């Protein structure tokens, strides 16, 4: 057996003359999709695998495919002769440009064998001269191939080819199997005493030359253990002991890198605290010096941990470099991305890679002293300048807790004052890349959700032309599906089907909430403008926003500020109750005409006006014709009924309209507390809790929303139903009938407790008269046709949008950056432009 070790992720270049058995070899050792052959590509671009005129295009395609695969981190095998230097060079460069390693496997078979194999293949009608030339190229190559830039060149001859077994080597950076928990420790810089104090604060038992955590935690050092501080050897001894004992990992910092070079006798500028290290190490026994040098020399650039969810690198690492290996990856990890400029203190200006970071992995790093560690797009810098008199900081992972100890003194004067302002991405800034194109949004409650490009385009227009500041726009409500269609005479929707569906899904208790007929409104309210500035980054002195389902502010005129102020005043009981100085509420703003008057006038009232003008004339004409003895059939009767329907239609929309002057007449009926400080309550709390908390604002839920009152907040009437009680179900149906017969829109049935999976978060059951607004005045005439409605898409959409909404709120509660919250919110709006029967 001959073992051929290739990188687990990277490029494998097969080299051999035509007929050397490359394809057979590849088929035996690799998956078909991993192997890209030049013959295959030639076929793709010419319909003829042997059309040599297609070769340049075929290789363009091959390089493209290989590039895409490498970018996506897939092992890729190139099956082409590759006997010429420039062919291999292009592939090696391709691997380098994707920061992966490349291996070559040479199949060195005698020319005669190759010629004989080709002879029995009808598609290889070229003569032995071709093989001879390739063979000559190969001979010439073999001598120099080690300099081509391959990590390894495996040459297989004779029966080695058949006996070969391919083995995979993991990248050194790959420690994904380690799941922690970890204590990640920032730049120590020779501050041994502070390090020991920090470890103890983290619960470690620190002994001579090592430390263990009783709960089996693993320490991860972000590098820069050395230089500047008082006891670099002490720090090294402790960390080397921990690493040797398996209780710690350590990545290389730029200071270790430079110290090693100095210790190796290379010429380096002795600055930035290197002198202290060299002096301190010189006082140590020679054996320790040797061990320390070997330790530092062996440190690698970064680690991927916890299934790839955590990356530790000294200066951070952009996503494209995670798990990759190349000079520039190492350089990025050690020194960061610099712009090539220097600042007023002569230090390199760093490129703010973290602000552009969009990766899923948490990146923890150090290198640049910051006054306070701060999460930026799921990355955090732990260098809090211990050696400069700041603090030594650790991050507990996965708890995401920060623990730090103060420096005992200023051990070293910093060139740049700690905490000097630096330029960066403003937290309120969004990028087009955050929202445009076909996107996939990962949600914790509904998996990965696709947003199509054209839907994103429509959403971008509405969002950027009409929506409130994205910092307020922390949530958009999802659509909601009706239950299965009722078969009850005269009804399209009825509560029975909703109860049945939830019962079948194993839900035992539901709440029926009155569905207010107004405009859906999201109210974001902060206790004070300062609280708004702190939580939402809004600094113009405003303290809230109330916006529509498309993110548009209600009342574009000055009334918005007044509305927010009055709501904040009325919301005061919530601050103590929720232990939060901000809250996001899901509400309905009444009356419908307050927001939708133009729509009502242009669409609904117009239909009513036209109907009530035309139908009486039609009735009159038909009556006259019938009076003449003409057989108008049932047309006269039907037209009379339609006139009645038109009147009912008019009464239905008129119910939801009443005059508003200023804010007089406006009501806001909340029904859910979406989020508050540290809590995405919509995703965690049962509806009983929501209604209970909201009763603090609205009083007892008895009054109707139209009632005259000075209060803006209006109650949402509701009843709880145990689904196993026929009596409670029947009572709820009664309740719904009374509500809708009095002109109400209907109700929403929701499982009381938070549900997951494929269970709908709520079902709307709309009233018979209200549905005239949706299905048209005469819908009751054609119920049989309308019953054939298809709910699948609507239900799927409701689930996807709900998952996105919960994701947005959870990201908000967890304090994620704006673009992370904006992403699912934007996706909800985009999905809302998907074609679904609008009547559902």
């Amino acid at each position: 057996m001959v073992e051929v070790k290739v990188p687990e992720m990277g490029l494998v270049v097969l080299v051999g003359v035509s007929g050397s058995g490359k394809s057979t070899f590849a088929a035996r050792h690799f998956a078909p999709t991993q192997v890209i052959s030049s013959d295959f590509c030639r076929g793709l671009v010419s319909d003829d695998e042997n059309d040599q005129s297609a070769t340049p295009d075929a290789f363009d395609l091959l390089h493209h495919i290989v590039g895409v695969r490498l970018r996506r981190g897939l092992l890729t095998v190139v099956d082409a002769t590759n006997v010429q230097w420039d062919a291999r060079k292009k592939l090696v460069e391709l691997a380098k440009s994707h920061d992966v390693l490349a291996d070559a496997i040479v199949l060195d078979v005698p020319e005669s064998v190759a010629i004989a194999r080709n002879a029995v293949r009808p598609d290889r009608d070229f003569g032995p001269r071709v093989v001879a030339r390739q063979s000559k190229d190969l001979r010439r190559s073999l001598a120099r191939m080690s300099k081509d830039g391959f990590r390894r060149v495996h040459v297989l001859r004779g029966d080695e080819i058949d006996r070969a077994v391919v083995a995979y080597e993991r990248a050194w950076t790959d420690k994904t199997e380690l799941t922690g928990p970890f204590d990640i420790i920032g730049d120590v810089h020779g501050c041994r005493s502070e390090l020991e104090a920090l470890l103890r604060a983290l619960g470690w038992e620190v002994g001579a030359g090592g430390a263990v955590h009783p709960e089996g935690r693993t320490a991860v050092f972000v590098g820069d253990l050395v230089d500047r501080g008082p006891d670099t050897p002490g720090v090294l001894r402790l960390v080397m002991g921990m690493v040797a004992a398996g209780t710690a990992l350590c990545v290389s910092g730029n200071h270790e890198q430079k110290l090693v070079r100095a210790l190796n006798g290379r010429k380096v500028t002795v600055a930035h605290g290197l002198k202290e290290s060299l002096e301190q190490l010189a006082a140590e026994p020679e054996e320790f010096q040797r061990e320390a040098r070997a330790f530092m020399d062996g440190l690698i650039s970064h680690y991927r941990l916890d299934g790839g969810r955590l990356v530790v690198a000294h200066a951070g690492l952009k996503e494209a470099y995670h798990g990759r290996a190349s000079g520039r990856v190492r350089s990025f990890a050690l020194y960061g991305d610099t712009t090539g400029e220097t600042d007023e203190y002569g230090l390199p200006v760093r490129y703010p890679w973290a602000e552009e970071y969009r990766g899923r992995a948490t990146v923890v790093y150090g290198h640049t002293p910051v006054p306070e560690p701060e999460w930026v797009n799921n990355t955090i810098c732990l260098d809090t300048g211990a050696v400069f008199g700041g603090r030594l900081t650790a991050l507990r992972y996965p708890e995401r807790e920060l623990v730090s100890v103060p420096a005992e003194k200023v051990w070293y004067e910093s060139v740049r004052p700690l905490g000097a302002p630096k330029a960066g991405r403003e937290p309120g800034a969004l990028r087009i890349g955050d929202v445009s194109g076909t996107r996939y949004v990962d949600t914790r409650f509904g998996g990965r959700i696709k947003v199509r490009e054209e839907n994103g385009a429509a959403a971008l227009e509405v969002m950027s032309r009409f929506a409130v500041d994205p910092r307020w726009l922390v949530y958009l409500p999802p659509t909601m599906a009706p239950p299965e269609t009722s078969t009850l005479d005269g009804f399209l929707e009825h509560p029975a089907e909703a109860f049945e569906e939830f019962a079948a899904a194993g839900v035992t208790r539901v709440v029926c909430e009155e569905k207010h007929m107004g405009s859906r409104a999201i109210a974001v309210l902060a206790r004070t403008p300062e609280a708004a500035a702190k939580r939402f980054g809004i600094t113009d002195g405003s303290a809230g926003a109330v916006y529509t389902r498309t993110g548009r502010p209600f009342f574009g005129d000055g009334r918005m500020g007044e509305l927010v102020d009055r709501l904040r005043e009325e919301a005061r009981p919530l601050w103590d109750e929720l232990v939060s100085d901000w809250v996001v509420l899901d509400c309905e703003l009444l009356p419908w005409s307050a927001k939708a008057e133009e729509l009502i006038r242009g669409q609904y009232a117009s239909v009513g006006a036209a109907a009530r003008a035309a139908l009486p004339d039609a009735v009159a004409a038909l009556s006259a014709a019938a009076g003449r003895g003409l057989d108008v059939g049932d047309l006269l009767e039907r037209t009379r009924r339609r006139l009645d329907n038109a009147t009912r239609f008019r009464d239905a929309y008129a119910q939801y309209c009443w005059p508003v002057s200023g804010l007089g007449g406006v009501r806001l009926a909340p029904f859910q507390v979406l989020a508050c400080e540290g809590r995405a309550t919509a995703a965690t709390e049962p509806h009983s809790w929501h209604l209970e908390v909201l009763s603090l604002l609205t009083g007892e839920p008895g009054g109707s929303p139209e009632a005259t009152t000075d209060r803006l907040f209006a109650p949402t009437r509701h009843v709880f139903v145990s689904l196993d009680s026929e009596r409670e179900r029947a009572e709820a149906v009664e309740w719904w009938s009374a509500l809708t017969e009095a002109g109400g829109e209907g109700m929403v049935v929701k499982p009381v407790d938070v549900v997951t999976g494929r269970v709908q978060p709520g079902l709307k059951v709309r009233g018979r008269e209200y549905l005239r607004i949706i299905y048209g005045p005469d819908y009751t005439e054609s119920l049989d046709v309308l019953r054939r409605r298809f709910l699948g898409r609507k239900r799927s959409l409701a689930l996807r949008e709900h998952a996105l909404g919960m994701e947005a709120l959870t990201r908000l509660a967890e304090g994620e950056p704006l673009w992370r919250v904006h992403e699912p919110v934007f996706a909800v709006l985009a999905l809302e432009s998907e074609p679904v029967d609008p009547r559902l």
Partner: protein
Amino acid sequence: MLLTISTVSSVTSRPATDLGFLLHKHPDRVQEFAQSFGTARVFYPEATERRCTAALLLDVDPVRLARSHGKTAPDFSLGQYVNDRPYAASSLLAVALGDVFRTARTGRCAARPELAEAPMPLEIRLPALPCRGGAALAHRLFEPLGWEIAAEALPLDEGFPEWGDSRYVRLALRGEVRLADALNQLYVLLPVLDDAKHYWLAGDEVDKLVRAGGGWLAGHPEKGLITRRYLGRRRALERTAFARLAELGDDVEEALEPPVDEEVVPEREDGVAGTDVGDPETAAVAEGLGEHADEHTSEHGGEAPHDSAASETPDGDATGPEAVRVPLNVLRRDAVVAAVEELGARTVIDLGCGSGQLLTALLARPAFTRIAGADVSTHALAIAARKLRLDRMPDAKRARLELFQGALTYADPRFAGYDAAVLMEVIEHVDPPRLPALERVVFGTAKPAHVVVTTPNREYNVRYDFLGEGRAMRHPDHRFEWTRAEFAAWARAVADRYGYRVAFRAVGDDDPDVGPPTQMAVFSVAGERSEGDG
């Protein structure tokens, strides 16, 4: 849904019931005609020797209507199910009329040939006629054809008198008109008055208009409007995704439409000023009616207020009556092009390019080697592509131009790398609280050497008659209009914050009291050579 046609017999003429011969429908029968969207019926509520009335009753089935377009019907909007089509005398009634009275419209009548040829006393009633432009437009369209017209506006909802009148009128026409002409006039004018979007109509409308307009359209004073509206219905771009979002927000789609073509530019003989690149369909109609295409181009009268184009063109100012008045948007475009040329810019991006007016001018100057247009509205971009004739543009020219969707409140790498960025009449469409985001994206991130910004000067609004009562700004989508002082303060603050210098210019007639109608700021990166630096 209902149309009645009555005639009375005079002493000398034949019985009124001869109407049945002309319509080819027997007065004593109720006849049904299936339509793709419902059923049309013809019957006679009265049929005596003295007076005869034929009724066309169209029963529109909204469900069938929505499905009548088959799979291509965009099933997107409640408007498809809850609409006035089943009640109003809409274009659907015209379609039914065209079909049911097909023979009558040709003027052929074997039984009463001389009657079919002659004008006769007719009374036509439409109880609910959608009429965009109000009763006045109905007068303008029917009166030139010899009708005496009574048009009474219908209230929207008697329970809400503050809502005012609906878009419907109760219409009665009386006149001595040949029946075939009357039917053809209704066939063309009902959809013209309706002027609604018709996702469900297609087909060869040009031919239909030419055929139905024979004999009366060519001489009609509103011929241009009639042609444009009749054909314009088909040109409506289907914006289903956008329409859904409008509906979701309880908004009216039209009210959300992007501000493209705020000002329609009257076309001049040399074609320089015209933004509309000529429309082959309009030309085809003209040709069909036996005319020269040029004859019916520039007319704007009678359009609903939002086509305020003509009115925004400054026409109350001091240029003498002999002077050729150049519309403001042309002056503005020329001023921007001149500014960009003086700055020596070779590559220019038009941020908020709308329908591409500036892009056209930039493309015409080879000195601009790379031109980009970005707009947040895909609708505007589609119009721009059409107006620029992108599909027919020669490769060399096409290669200089890039069009893409982008939003000025989202930082976008595609905005960067141009010598100059133009924001022509753009900032006033951005809500003031969102302006800092726009400033950051343009001046902070894209950071071109030069930025040219134009915006209305609010002080000048007193010179516009159409502003005042109930209308404060020049366009409904304007979020603000600034005085010169306000604009200067904003521009200077932005320049300070992002390291630019700024100079101001007047565009259009610089009124000694209120300044110019349009104001322009030219920003240049501090240290960069620019105009006036010599």
